[in-house]
């Protein structure tokens, strides 16, 4: 994490609340490692602007006036796979975050606890996603239930994993996170490097997006039933 960035990361902001947007913009501007690429108050405006050029990082609020933030996430994730998307949320609750992750977001910032040092979040993000909350980790575990016959021996090396189910190692990591352990603690307890934990998390995020696509129809059906 001590690795310094060679060029400033370009950051775009989509947030309809003026105060928060100004604060986010100020935080970005204040850091030399970051560069403000654009700020948008409305969803359509953001879509038009983002179609022009890709930021390295996108900060997006879900509760916009005109369209859902999820649409912007999906748009950007499809168009710029390398763009790191962060959801800006007040509560970071499952109902908002999980769909965002499935749409392609890589993490979220909590409004209010917005750090004096936003770079930390952004750096974590580019390393493999911002910290998953235990609640979200648990939901991900539930959603990407591994196949019943996961090979325990192959868990450490990462066996040939299905596109949208978890390997045993990923399950182990998510279980640690769900119990509140930090990435560093998890890495120590599992006797792996922090970087490996980040790699696994990146993979988990990807699986979540894949899963959301393959399971979309099924989930819709299930919701109707429930």
């Amino acid at each position: 994490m001590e690795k310094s960035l060679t060029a400033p990361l370009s950051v775009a902001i989509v947030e309809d609340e003026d105060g928060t947007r100004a604060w986010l913009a100020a935080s970005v501007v204040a850091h030399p490692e970051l560069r403000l690429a654009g700020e948008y108050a409305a969803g359509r405006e953001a879509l038009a602007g983002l179609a022009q050029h890709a930021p390295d990082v996108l900060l997006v609020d879900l509760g916009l006036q005109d369209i859902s933030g999820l649409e912007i996430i999906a748009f950007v994730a499809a168009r710029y796979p390398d763009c790191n998307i962060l959801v800006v949320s007040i509560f970071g609750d499952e109902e908002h975050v999980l769909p965002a992750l499935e749409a392609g977001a890589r993490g979220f910032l909590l409004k209010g606890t917005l750090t004096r040092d936003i770079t930390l979040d952004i750096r974590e993000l580019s390393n493999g996603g911002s910290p998953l909350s235990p609640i979200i980790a648990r939901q991900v575990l539930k959603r990407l239930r591994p196949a019943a016959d996961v090979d325990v021996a192959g868990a450490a090396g990462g066996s040939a994993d299905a596109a949208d189910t978890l390997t045993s190692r990923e399950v182990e990591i998510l279980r640690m996170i769900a119990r509140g352990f930090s990435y560093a603690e998890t890495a120590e307890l599992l006797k792996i490097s922090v970087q490996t934990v980040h790699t696994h998390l990146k993979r988990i995020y990807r699986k979540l997006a894949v899963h959301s696509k393959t399971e979309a129809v099924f989930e819709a059906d299930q919701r109707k039933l429930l």
Partner: protein
Amino acid sequence: MRRWIVPLFALIATLGAACAAAAPPSVTTIERGEWVASDSSVPPPDSAPWRPVELPDDWSNSHPGFSGQLWYRFAFHTAAPKTTQVLYVPRNSAAEIEIFVNRELLSISKAYGDARITELQRPLIDTVPAIMLHGGNNVIHVRVTGSADYRHGLSRLTIGSGLIVGPQYYERRFDLQVGTIAMFGAALLVAGLLAFSVWGVERSDPVLLWFGLTALAWAASAYLLVWPPHTGDVHVRQLLLFAMQHLYVVPLIVLCLRVGGARYRRVEAVLWCAFAAACGAAAVLSYTQYPILAAATSVARLGLTIAALVWLVRVGIREHRWPLYSLGLALATVIVFSGYDWARWMGYADFDNLLLAPFAMPFLILALGATGVERHLSMTRAIDQSKRELEQRVAEKVREVEQTYRKMQEVLHEQTVLRERQRIMADMHDGLGSALIGLLSQVHGQSADLPQIEQRLSEMLTDLRAIVDSLQPVEGDLGVVLGNIRYRMSRAIEASGVKFVWRVEVLPPLEDLAPDKVLSVQRIVLEALTNALRHAAASSVTISAKYIAERDVIVIAIADDGVGFKPATAERGNGLRNMRSRAQRIGVRLDIDSSPGRGTRVTMELPAVPLGAAYQRHRPE
């Protein structure tokens, strides 16, 4: 009807022909002879005024009104017999009969039962020793006594080898005329008793009762016909004869009505009264008056049977049912057979032929069987129907129960939602609402202490997040709840610079971890953690959680190595009181262990399983 009658008569003619089969060479059937009226006890001399006669000789035709004794004389030619011969008479219609062969008495006078009481008139057979016959011409004299009131007379005589005449004539005839009727009677007795017993079990079906009565009446008639009791009393004899002929009539008519689904009380009452009156009359009428009654009631019987048949046919045209058809067939048989018997009686048919009326009995058994089958089928159908109805009703009930269950679930869900809403409202009102108002008044009162306001706002946001988090799905996982507190507090922990130790083990799921409980646990831990970070001046804080299997509890501890305090005189009394009351509200044991200079340790003990489950787990083997 005509279609039936012709084959029936053909059948009857065949039967008759079989019995009076053409005699083989060694057998002689005598159909012509002479007769003379004489009271002599021995064969009258040849000089008596013999006159020719053809057999069978039915007195009611040949000697109307005659009562007394007649002598018959038959001459026949035969080779000298080597073996014993037999003399066979198919219908012994004499009150008394004596046979003389070549003027020697063959047998003493015979009467099977009382020939006056029964119309059955059994066949007769007698042995003729070979020495009584001689080659060439022989002569047989037969003495017959009888009366005008009954059909007396003499049948054909057949004489020949006993080996042939016995089996081919006598036995065949006896089996048909006596054995078969006895068998029918026995079958009807059994069928009647069966019908009665079934009716006794299930009184709802009167048809069975009347079937039973009719069958038993016929069985009684058959018994009287085959084994007429000997009685010297003419009145008893008349009563028995009348009963034999008419006993079945009223039950049969009533049975027809019941099978047809009708009940004419008056008609039935009249019939029963008429039957009783006729029985009485039969018992009291004189020997000469009785035949008039018998003739009248026979006509009435035939008329009633025909009327019943017509009625049944009319009902049968409307409702196509097996019992109607089979009973109609039985009635038709009774009518045809009785008609034939009457015709024979009147001389329109061979006098020696069989009495047919008893042969209607199997048709009644058939009708009974058909009724039984119909009842069974309709019962099966009714059972099927009621089963279907029952299934339908059960399905309806199941639907109702499901609906009720769904409604109950909805109500329960609504109640839960309402309770949550009330709790959240209370939280908003007492917690966030009053805190916001306090802040507002601070800002208004110009005593605004910005860092303090920021701290308060941050606390409020933390609490709001705790409320939101308590509503997140955790499915009984206390580890996630604790982990989430750490996640929420991570910035504050980092900012404090305290060494933070996290020792949350894998915990068993709690079945009763409802949002309010989650929130209380969160607030207690947050309070303890905040105290440790803010006031304890600690260098490290440890949060641990583990499951203690022996006591089936989960123990959560927040421990610091800070300054500590005297719990009794704690200046932080308000926060501690809050923690204690929260713990109490959710049934959690809370210990706050602290003394100055030795740090603080807050311990919570949560029952790992609800009471019922705990009992299940520790139930004695």
